[in-house]
């Protein structure tokens, strides 16, 4: 058992700035409430700035709290704040009841998430001011965005699993509302519904895990569970790990619950950037990292996390190669990158810090690229098909340059943030298991291919857009956020300077001696860069050097066809889950019509018929009634006699 190595969650009550932690959640929640209560029309003039302001306020508070946390001793970097008792079933008659407090846990892990959510979230809020300018319902959009930020902050600040669950459902709701924001489009409404339903499947895991915690420990707080996890049986711990893995799969679009993410791109682009790239979809990684005391105690659960991560990182990458819709290509890439994070989180103490590191850098460069894609769509009259783009680098210089920063970062160009984070994950994977390492490395090569393809088809090659489309650069309110995120994408690697992020997170996830990978780290890095270079070169020769047809060619290989169909994820869900469900329902309808209805109707008919006969007795003649009274009385007398004589 490794229990002794895993830090126990034991927050000390905070003072000073830490007394205001609740305000970080409250600010966006208040913003959302004001806009939703007052309504769309009355808040039209100021809703967007209210939305930006509340998130900016939260960001400032997070920043101050972050520096305050950095200022205190490493072993005391766990601040708790008890807000109120959420519910209590404990009483004198039921001493073993459950008490759940609504509390905040602020530690290095939540501190980083706060900065990511409020920082990137704030930037995306600013971008949305421009992007949604011509939308009639912009105030409502900002209300939903604020709602999302508040829920996500609840998720990462809660000090118990039930609090996490509250935030978990909150972000799910916000995601649903925002994917279906343009609900007049059938595709958007359907996509929202799909995301909601698939997420519910994952939530079953979350609910089961929480219930199992209550049944086993009688508590859901990180504090108590992390201290007593050693008392639970191995099977229980593994079940807990698998339940939370299912939850993570749903929220983070990991195989087998990946199918909703590509459709989720129906939402407005800032939503895709904020929720379906930078923050919400990483909640699964947060959950696994936060539950490190569970996964460290269960080898099978950890292996399951690694398998899910590896499968998803290849799955998403393959899908990304075949998509012509720029947002869907990026969505496949998101899926794949989160696969990397899951893989790292599954590697245990050696990987948690790198999972979070990649999560942060991915948050920067993927948000950057999604917003860049939004800027391109803005220029191309909302066309998302990359086959209709081409040669945009001259016309959209700012978008192109910022997008290029994100591109270099995601493929792992030496020096850029993605290079540092992905390199570390692949290195950790190689140290753990060669097969996993090779899969992760292959994923890096495929990433380089599809991102180069996306880059070439959008900004280079010949122009393929229609007559009458006049690409133009976006306003400053959209390019400003792009520049900020591009800078973060380039410089994100500084977090690794002197192993800072590893040291910073060690109070949460523990510390492990560095194991040397089987081949020297520098050689490994060189191999990774070479693989990436091969991916880029293949893309260059197959796409950059050739004519890109405006229509997607149909005589393509089986692999391409499969990737275009999301590797048949939807077909599988439909065949295995939906159709049998339909059949079952049809069978039940037949049963209902032919058995249950017949029985119910038959009962009614029978009692009607009997009544028709019985009412003949009511003939209105007094003498008949008198006779029946006499008969009745005679019967009673006979009965009495029979009883008395026997």
């Amino acid at each position: 058992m490794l229990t002794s190595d895993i830090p126990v969650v034991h927050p000390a009550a905070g003072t000073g700035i830490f007394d205001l932690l609740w305000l970080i959640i409250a600010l966006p929640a208040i913003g959302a409430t004001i806009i939703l209560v007052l309504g769309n029309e009355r808040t039209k003039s100021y809703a967007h700035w209210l939305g930006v302001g509340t998130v900016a306020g939260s960001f400032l508070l997070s920043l101050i709290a972050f520096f305050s946390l950095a200022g205190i001793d490493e072993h005391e970097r766990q601040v708790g704040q008890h807000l109120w008792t959420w519910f209590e079933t404990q009483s004198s008659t039921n001493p073993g009841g459950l008490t759940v407090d609504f509390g905040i846990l602020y530690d290095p892990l939540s501190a980083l998430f706060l900065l990511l959510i409020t920082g990137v979230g704030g930037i995306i809020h600013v971008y949305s001011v421009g992007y949604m300018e011509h939308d009639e319902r912009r105030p409502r959009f900002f209300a939903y965005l604020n709602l999302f930020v508040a829920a996500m902050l609840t998720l990462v600040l809660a000090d118990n699993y039930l609090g996490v669950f509250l935030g978990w459902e909150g972000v799910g709701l916000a995601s649903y509302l925002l994917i279906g924001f343009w609900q007049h489009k059938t595709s958007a409404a359907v996509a929202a519904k799909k995301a909601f339903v698939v997420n519910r499947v994952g939530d079953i895991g979350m609910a089961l895990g929480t219930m199992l915690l209550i049944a086993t420990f009688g508590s859901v707080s990180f504090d108590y569970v992390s201290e007593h996890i050693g008392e639970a049986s191995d099977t229980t711990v593994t079940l807990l790990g698998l339940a939370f893995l299912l939850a993570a799969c749903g929220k983070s679009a990991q195989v087998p619950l990946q199918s909703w993410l590509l459709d989720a791109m129906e939402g407005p682009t800032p939503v895709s950037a904020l929720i379906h790239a930078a923050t919400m979809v990483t909640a699964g990684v947060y959950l696994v990292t936060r539950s490190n005391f569970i996964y460290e105690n269960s080898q099978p659960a950890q292996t399951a996390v690694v398998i899910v991560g590896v499968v998803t990182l290849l799955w998403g990458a393959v899908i990304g190669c075949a998509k012509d819709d720029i947002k869907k290509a990026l969505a496949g890439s998101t899926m794949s990158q989160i696969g990397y994070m899951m893989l790292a989180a599954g590697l245990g103490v050696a990987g948690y810090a790198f999972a979070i590191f990649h999560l942060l850098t991915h948050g920067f460069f993927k948000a950057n690229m999604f917003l860049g894609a939004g800027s391109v769509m803005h220029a191309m009259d909302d066309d998302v098909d990359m086959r209709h783009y081409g040669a945009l680098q001259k016309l959209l210089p700012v978008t192109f340059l910022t997008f290029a920063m994100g591109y270099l970062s995601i493929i792992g160009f030496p020096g850029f943030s993605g290079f540092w984070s992905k390199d570390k994950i692949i290195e950790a994977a190689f140290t753990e298991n060669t097969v996993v390492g090779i899969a992760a490395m292959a994923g890096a090569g495929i990433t380089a291919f599809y991102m180069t393809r996306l880059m070439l088809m959008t900004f280079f090659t010949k122009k393929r857009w229609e007559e009458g489309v006049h690409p133009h650069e976006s306003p400053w309110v959209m390019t400003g956020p792009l520049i900020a995120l591009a800078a973060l994408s380039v410089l994100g690697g500084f977090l690794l300077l002197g192993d800072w992020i590893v040291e910073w997170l060690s109070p949460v996830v523990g510390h492990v001696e560095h194991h040397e990978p089987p081949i020297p780290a520098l050689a490994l890095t060189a191999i990774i860069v070479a693989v990436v270079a091969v991916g880029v070169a293949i893309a260059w020769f197959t796409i950059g050097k050739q004519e890109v047809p405006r229509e997607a060619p149909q005589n393509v290989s089986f692999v391409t066809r499969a990737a275009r169909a999301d590797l048949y994820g939807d077909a599988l869900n439909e065949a295995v889950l939906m159709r049998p469900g339909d059949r079952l329902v049809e069978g039940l309808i037949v049963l209902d019509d032919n058995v249950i209805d017949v029985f119910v109707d038959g009962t009614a008919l029978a009692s009607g018929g009997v009544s028709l006969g019985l009412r003949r007795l009511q003939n209105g003649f007094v003498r008949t009634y008198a006779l029946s009274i006499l008969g009745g009385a005679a019967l009673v007398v006979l009965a009495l006699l029979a009883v008395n004589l026997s």
Partner: protein
Amino acid sequence: MEAGPFIVLSAILFTIGATGVLVRRNAIVVFMCVELMLNACNLALVTFARVHGNLDGQVAAFFVMVVAAAEVVVGLAIIMTIFRTRRSASVDDASLLRF
């Protein structure tokens, strides 16, 4: 005292009354038959009171008389009303309350 003859007389009177209620059509006659049954009961009650040597039966008989008196008041009023509206005192004619 020998109670037998009184009880037999009471039973005969009751049977006559019950038969009359069942076979006669005229409301007045039916009414009289009801009274006959009540008084047959009274006779039985008084007889048993005498046999047992206490007053319980006699008290019950007084109650029956009071009820019978009240019944006469209400019953005759109903019969009168029916006769005025339908020009008939036959109980079979008043058979509106049926299916």
